[in-house]
Structures are given as structure tokens and as C-alpha cells.
């Protein structure tokens, strides 16, 4: 597969503040790639550098092999869906969508036809002559999408395009966006701080924090094989405990839990010593005493689809467990002694 965007040790500083520290990423052609991270981690900065709105302090950005780091934004075959849509308020919906085509020099009939098709694609054909102010937020969002897709860019950049929508619409738009990406075959670089959004839509995710890329991988990689505490904690819920490594052989580590039990798990490190262990709450199962780790139930919290059980290992380490709120579930009473089993892949030894 071809590399669409190659970001090579890109650094961005604002005065004395460094927003990005030597970030390197390769994004494949036809990929739905997500930049995920908490507020202020530099997602928008990176996206704006790809679009050309911010200068690159150091490093290179290659688009299909061509270095574009010094190119003006209007010369880059890359289009953006802005967070607040940035629709031209004085132009009708169809003129907004046709703007990029007009700038690329297409004649009027072609512009009309192509813009019309784009509006069809986002189900807004009947709104062609309205002004942006006469549309709902979700409709404006679709216009922004159609406008950015109309010139058939090689890469589409989307900066939290769904964050201004309500939950239901957001969920519907996720599916539509994903579908659109598959239908058009355009590379999408999608920015979000919503991990659920990232997991459901992406081919691959780059998890960022404080100007560094922490991990790049498929949603499954990121969730099941986090490399460090930040990733394990940011994606989904987890139990983090400090453990002593007994031995590491290949991809498996033997670690000793605070209570003295020893377990085997996958590992992100080959250094012995003290590390953190991540245990996913839904990969723990409750059983009778005598099976697995001994623990005492502290509290049971009702969450609707799930129950959250807070337990304490013998030795004092607290753990949370998720069990499905199924019809025939036996809800343990606080104070009950139980046995805890770690399912396959429940625990992972982290690098830090």
C-alpha cells in the first residue's frame, strides 16, 4: 500500500512553548486514520500543519512522496472539514460546495453537476439554495463535508467535525463518515478526543499526549496491547497496579501481584524491575472462593447494561470488575469472599 502522508520528526514551537516534539507518522492511502488525545495535546496543530495553516518549525511533511512543508495551503491537494464548519455565510449551500471546484477552474456546468452530486451524497439536495445560517448544525456539518470532498482531495482532514452535534446525530454521522470514506477511497485524517469515536471509525489510531505520539495501531492494538499507562488509562477503563517483574521471555512476562500471586501476561517491555500492570475490568470474572485470586467484595454499582463490582485482593489492592447485567446473574453481596479469574489477555505489562 502507498503512503499518503509521511510526517517526519515534525516539531512545532510557539515562542518557548513546544506544542509537538519530533512527531513521526505514516498514513497509508485510503486509510481512516485518527489522531486521538486529550485537549491541548497538539492534534489540531498537527492537522493545521498538514493543511498548511501553520509553519513547520522542524521536520518534513510528505504527501505521496512530495515534500509539502513549505507549500502554501491553496497549493496543497488536501481539504479540511473545520470544527466550526467555516461555511461562507454569504453564499448559498450549492455555491459553498462548488467553491473549491470554481477555484480549480472547472466550468459552470461541471461545477453545478459535481456540487449537486456531492449534496446528493450527504442528502441535502433540497437545501441547495439556502444560506448556511438557514440550516441546522448537523446539516451545516454535512455541507462542510460535501464542500471539502467536492474537489476530490487526496487527503481529507477533519478536526473534531462531530463535536458540536448532539449524541444521537453524532452516532449516526460516525457511520455515515465511515461509509463515505470507504465509498470515496479518500484518505481521512480525523481528529478527536473521544475514544469511542476513534475506536469505532478508524483503521488506525495515533494516541497523542503533550506533543508526543504515545502509540500507533489498530483500535484492537491500542485497546488490548497498550504500551504505557497513558494509553491504557486513556482508552477505556482499566485497573493499574504496580508490580514486580519476575521474568520476561519473548512477549510474555511473569509478574508478581501485590498480594504475592504470580501471573503470566503479555508485555510491552523487556526491562525487568517495577512496572505498571493494566487489567481490563471486563476481562475479570467472579467465581467461588478457591478459584483464582482471593478477594472480598466491597461494593456493587448498578450501571444499566453492566454491573461494576469493586473488590479488594487479599493484601489490600482494590480492583474494579465489569460484569454484564444478564438475567441470571448472581449479584454478590458486599463482604462476600470470592475468587477472581483473569481471562485471556486481561492483563498487560506496561513500559512505565
Amino acid at each position, binding site marked *: 500500500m502507498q503512503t499518503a502522508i509521511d510526517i517526519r520528526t515534525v516539531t512545532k514551537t510557539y515562542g518557548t512553548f513546544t506544542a509537538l516534539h519530533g512527531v513521526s507518522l505514516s498514513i497509508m492511502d485510503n486509510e481512516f486514520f485518527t489522531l486521538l488525545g486529550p485537549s491541548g495535546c497538539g492534534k489540531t496543530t498537527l492537522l493545521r500543519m498538514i493543511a498548511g495553516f501553520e509553519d513547520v518549525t522542524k521536520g518534513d511533511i510528505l504527501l505521496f512522496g512530495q515534500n509539502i512543508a513549505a507549500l502554501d495551503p491553496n497549493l496543497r491537494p488536501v481539504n479540511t472539514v473545520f470544527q466550526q464548519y*467555516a461555511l461562507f455565510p454569504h453564499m448559498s449551500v450549492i455555491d459553498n460546495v462548488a*467553491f473549491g471546484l470554481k*477555484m480549480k477552474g472547472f466550468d459552470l456546468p461541471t461545477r453545478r453537476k459535481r456540487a449537486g452530486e456531492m449534496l446528493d451524497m450527504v442528502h441535502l439536495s433540497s437545501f441547495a439554495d439556502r444560506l448556511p445560517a438557514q440550516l441546522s448544525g448537523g446539516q451545516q456539518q454535512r455541507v462542510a463535508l460535501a464542500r*471539502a470532498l467536492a474537489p476530490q482531495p487526496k487527503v481529507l482532514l477533519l478536526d473534531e467535525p462531530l463535536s458540536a452535534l448532539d449524541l444521537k446525530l453524532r452516532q449516526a454521522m460516525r457511520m455515515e463518515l465511515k461509509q463515505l470514506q470507504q465509498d470515496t477511497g479518500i484518505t481521512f485524517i480525523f481528529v478527536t478526543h473521544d475514544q469511542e469515536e476513534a475506536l469505532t471509525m478508524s483503521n488506525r489510531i495515533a494516541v497523542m499526549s503533550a506533543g508526543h505520539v504515545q502509540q500507533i495501531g489498530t483500535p484492537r492494538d491500542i485497546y488490548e496491547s497498550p504500551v504505557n499507562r497513558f494509553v491504557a488509562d486513556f482508552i477505556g477503563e482499566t485497573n493499574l497496579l504496580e508490580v514486580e517483574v519476575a521474568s520476561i521471555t519473548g512477549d510474555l512476562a511473569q509478574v508478581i501481584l501485590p498480594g504475592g500471586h504470580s501471573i503470566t501476561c503479555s508485555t510491552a517491555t523487556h526491562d525487568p524491575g517495577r512496572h505498571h500492570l493494566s487489567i481490563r475490568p471486563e476481562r475479570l470474572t467472579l467465581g467461588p472462593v478457591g478459584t483464582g485470586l482471593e478477594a472480598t467484595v466491597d461494593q456493587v454499582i448498578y450501571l444499566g447494561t453492566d454491573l461494576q463490582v469493586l473488590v479488594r485482593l487479599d493484601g489490600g489492592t482494590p480492583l474494579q470488575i465489569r460484569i454484564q447485567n444478564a438475567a441470571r446473574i448472581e449479584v454478590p453481596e458486599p463482604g462476600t469472599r470470592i475468587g477472581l479469574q483473569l481471562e485471556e489477555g486481561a492483563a498487560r505489562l506496561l513500559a512505565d
Partner: protein
Amino acid sequence: MAAPTPTTAPDSGASSDATYRSARVPLLLPTWLVIGFFLILPVALMAVYSFLTKEMRGGVIWEFSLAAYDQFFINRGLFGDEPASLEWTYISVFGRSIAQAATATTLCLLIGFPTAWFIATRAPATRGVWLFLITVPYWVNLLIRTVSLRFLIRENGPLNDALLGSGLIAEPLALINTNFAVQLGLFYSYLPFMVLPIYAAVERYNFTLSEAAADLYASRWVTLRDIVLPIVKPGIIAGCLLVFIPSLGAFLAPNLLGGAKNFMIGSLIEEQFKRSLGNWPFGAAVSMILMSLVLVLLLLYARSMARAEAR
């Protein structure tokens, strides 16, 4: 974010509607008083005066007469005995004034737009300083500032001194009593009226739109033409009106800097109300004609805007 919109409509039908109507009169009274006293009354007075007979030393005789309008439009020769033809003297004063005002407006726009843009794109904290600097000259009376302009550009004034000193010119330039001086005076007097409304419009402009345009392959120039200018147009038009209208009726700059041959409407009107030359009905008539002209221009503009909107 979804705060309930406060309902301004009366909630209980007809009875409160009546209350609303009866309350309207006292509430609107101050507005009507201000408009009546400061707008309708003076204009009505002018309109009436323009149809009265002049008193030789200023003032009017309460006797209906069309003499003022006759004097403006109709030429009957020096002794009033030739066949009537169109009088060009005053119409040409109007023409010259319109040309001067239009030039001043264009100059103010050319300088004012970049200035407003510059201020609006500074960091918010420093914008205030720039705006303050723009308004500082307004603390001094316009008359005094216009007179000082005269000193600046006179033959042995600082401008000529500097130009002579730098060797750019060999002879001092005679700038006073030229069109250039009037232009300079108008430009100087009214520039802030161009800068401020454009500043207000640019400051509200969402610069992400320019990024969006660049993202869609528009060059800087096309972005300015197709995105920025249409959006800040109301500010530009407000600025142009605020410069053009007072420039048209200005009399300080033409009087103090332009001399007799660069006479403008403002001076013509002003002269009619001076004791020595006084012809109040004529002054009133010229004012009425000027006002009608401005109104017609405004109406034409409003109509073209409405048509553009409908499209």
C-alpha cells in the same frame, strides 16, 4: 447551551395586546421628541425658509417666493432681462463638490481599509491602543486642526522645508489654495469615520473563513475579493457614507485650505447666512437641494442593495 428563549410576545391574547398598545405611546415619546425637535423641526424650518423672500441684511420676510430656487437653476442675465436659460454656476459648484467628496471617500477607503485591517488583526490587547491613537486628534477642535494643516503645508512650512532640505524640490510648492489642499483637509478630517466602521466589521470577521478559502485553493487576492470583501461590505459602505456625506457639505477645509476657486457647497451655504452677504432663503434652498440629492443617492443605493439581496 439550549437556554429557553424568553418570550417577548404577550402571553394572554387580546387584553395584553391593548395594554401593549396603550403603553407604546408614552414609551415612544422620548424618541419622537428627539426626532421631532432635532430632525423634523429644523428641516421643516429650512424647507419653509427656502420659499420665503429675503431680507437685505439676513433674515426673511414672511412672503411666499420662488426666488431662491429661481436663482439656483435659472439664468436671466446680469440684469434679469435676458431669456431664461439653465444657470450653471451653482450646479457646477455641486458637481465639483461631488467630485471632491467622491475623491476624498476613495482616498479614505484606500488608506482606511488597510489601517482598519491592521488594527483588527493585532492582538486584542493592543487594538485598544491603536483605536485610541486614531481618536486622539478628535480631542482638538476641527477648526484648529484645519488651520494647523494650513501652517504645515504653507510655502515656508515644515512640509516644504523638509522637501527643500531633502533636495527633492528646488522651489517651495504652492500647496495652499489648491484642490490638493482641500483633498488633504477632507481626507484628514474624515479618515477615522472610514476606519472605525471597517474596523468593527473586520474585527467581527471570522478568519477561519479565509483559511477555508485557502484550503479550497483560493489565492490571497481571490479570498479578499470573494470572501472578505462581501462579508465586511456593510462596514465599508457605512464608512463611505460617513465620509462622503459630510465631505459633500464640508466648509472648513474648502474655506481654509482651498480659497475662492475651490469653493464647495458647504461654503456656498455658509456664506448665505453671514450678515454681510446674507440670503437666507437661498441658503435654505441650496441646503434643501443638497439634502434631496443625498436622499436620492441613498434611496438608489438601498434599492440596489435590496435587489442584490433578492438575487
